């Protein structure tokens, strides 16, 4: 049996996921969806701002102190990923069969990896020093991945 079928069967018989799918309570699926939305808005928003700064916007702001802000970004990523996994668990087969799901996940994984890569480089940026071409390239990639993940997530619902 295929791994997806095994997981699908488990989800269909799991009490928590049954409740999540079938409850009409605003504290069931809508609450998980709310946490996902809140987390991704905060995470993507913060990342887009940091990326814009690295790409040359708001030069009046020093780069290095942004490294301290990444703790908040990681908390946002944790909430978004956890709630995302729960929503996937509630509806494994449909979500995995969506043709926009794999590219969305690719964007998300790349964006998270770029967040980690940028943090260490931002922390070691000296005041007054220019942002290196490598860091600018990473920031541009991060920007594309976050915005791409949002767009693919929105379009996936209608695809």
């Amino acid at each position: 049996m295929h791994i997806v079928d095994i997981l699908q069967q488990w989800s269909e018989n799991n009490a928590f996921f049954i409740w999540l799918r079938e409850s009409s309570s605003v504290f069931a699926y809508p609450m998980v969806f709310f946490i996902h939305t809140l987390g991704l808005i905060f995470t993507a928003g913060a990342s887009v701002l940091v990326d814009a700064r690295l790409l040359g916007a708001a030069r009046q702001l020093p780069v290095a102190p942004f490294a301290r802000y990444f703790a908040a970004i990681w908390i946002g990523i944790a909430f978004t990923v956890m709630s995302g996994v729960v929503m996937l668990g509630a509806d494994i087969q449909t979500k995995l069969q969506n043709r926009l799901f794999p590219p969305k996940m690719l964007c998300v994984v790349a964006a998270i990896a770029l967040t980690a890569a940028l943090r260490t480089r931002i922390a070691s940026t000296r005041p007054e020093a220019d942002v290196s071409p490598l860091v600018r390239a990473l920031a541009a990639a991060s920007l594309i991945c976050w915005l791409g993940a949002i767009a693919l997530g929105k379009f996936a619902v209608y695809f």
Partner: protein
Amino acid sequence: MNSWWVVPLCKTIHYFGIAGLAGIVGLLDLRIFGVAKGLPLRPLQRLMPWAVVSFLIAAASGYVLLRIAPASALGPPLNIAFAAKILFLVLIGLNDILYFATGLKRQVDAVGVGESTSASAKIVAGVSIALWIGVVYWSRVLTFLAGAI
């Protein structure tokens, strides 16, 4: 007019606007709270016009979405979550007016790198964060009550 891609495109634009807004407002509110104190507040507050631009992008795309499917928000019956969302946005506007009118904005401008802001500034920032989280919450309940979740 209503091809299948119009709604997801409007929602994507809506979220891009929200991301710009959340990026600036989130960082400013959290910095006032004491996160990433190495960031100077005065240049951070100079990003506010960009937050307004982001808000206008979100508002315009939101208005288009409302015109495409008015019944899901305006009813009848009126979607109570939509009313709450608009109320919270008005409260955010009042909170922002308070921030400027009471001179708190200028007071925060003068706070140096590594320094803490006043308790009143922290209260206004806290109210702002709570209300914005509320706006996201009501948006999700709005979708739920409209039967789209």
